[in-house]
């Protein structure tokens, strides 16, 4: 039995359908947004606690940091568990965003220390300000995720 080739119009329709499926999957990448927001929120929450000047030692602050970190990681994993479709673009974007945040974070920490913004006589608020600057890539990535 001879194979029947699709007509050009059928081929075009099949290509359009394939593009539509891929586009639909990219829209589902918005499910990644809560992961990035949870990471940013955890980072900021810990920074707020550390900004309350614990240099004298404060068990409440240290417990708060630990609880916040553990809760943040748990929430992040929960959001990841809920994802029903891992698109290639979305997964790559998640990895790049997290790496980008890490590198930017290192740069901000370096600059904060090198300029004396963080110092023994500086107010704890400086730490919080650095954290807000450091978390910008994560927030931008969260905003961009799942948008075509």
């Amino acid at each position, binding site marked *: 039995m001879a194979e029947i*080739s*699709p*007509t*050009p*119009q059928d*081929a*075009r329709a*099949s*290509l*359009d*359908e*394939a*593009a539509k*499926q*891929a586009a*639909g*999957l*990219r829209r*589902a990448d918005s499910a990644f947004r809560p992961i990035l927001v949870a990471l940013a929120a955890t980072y900021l929450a810990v920074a707020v606690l550390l900004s309350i000047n614990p240099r004298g030692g404060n068990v409440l602050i240290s417990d708060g940091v630990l609880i916040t970190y553990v809760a943040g990681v748990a929430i992040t994993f929960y959001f990841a*568990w809920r994802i*029903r*479709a*891992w*698109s*290639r*673009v979305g*997964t790559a974007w998640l990895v790049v965003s997290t790496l980008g945040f890490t590198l930017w974070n290192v740069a901000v920490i370096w600059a904060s220390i090198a300029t004396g913004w963080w110092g023994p006589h500086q107010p704890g608020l400086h730490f919080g300000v650095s954290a807000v600057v450091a978390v910008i890539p994560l927030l931008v990535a969260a905003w961009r995720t799942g948008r075509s």
Partner: protein
Amino acid sequence: MVALLAAADRVEFSFARDHVEVSDSVLSKQMSALEQAGYIKVRKGFVGKRPRTWLSLTGEGRRVFARHLAALREIAAANGVGLEHA
């Protein structure tokens, strides 16, 4: 279905069903056939008591689909049909 999987690392069965708008049984039959042909991988698991089935294209599946798309583009281009999205 394969177009959906080609754009993904892996997709949950229920997501694929809802996205492609077919019933569970239709999708299961399609997946069985594709799995037997070696084009997709089906991974079943449980999270707590909740079953989860993950679908992904194999390397061979991706290669075959890429060749299929290339052939479709040639056919569509041969008669000058627009290729804005190809």
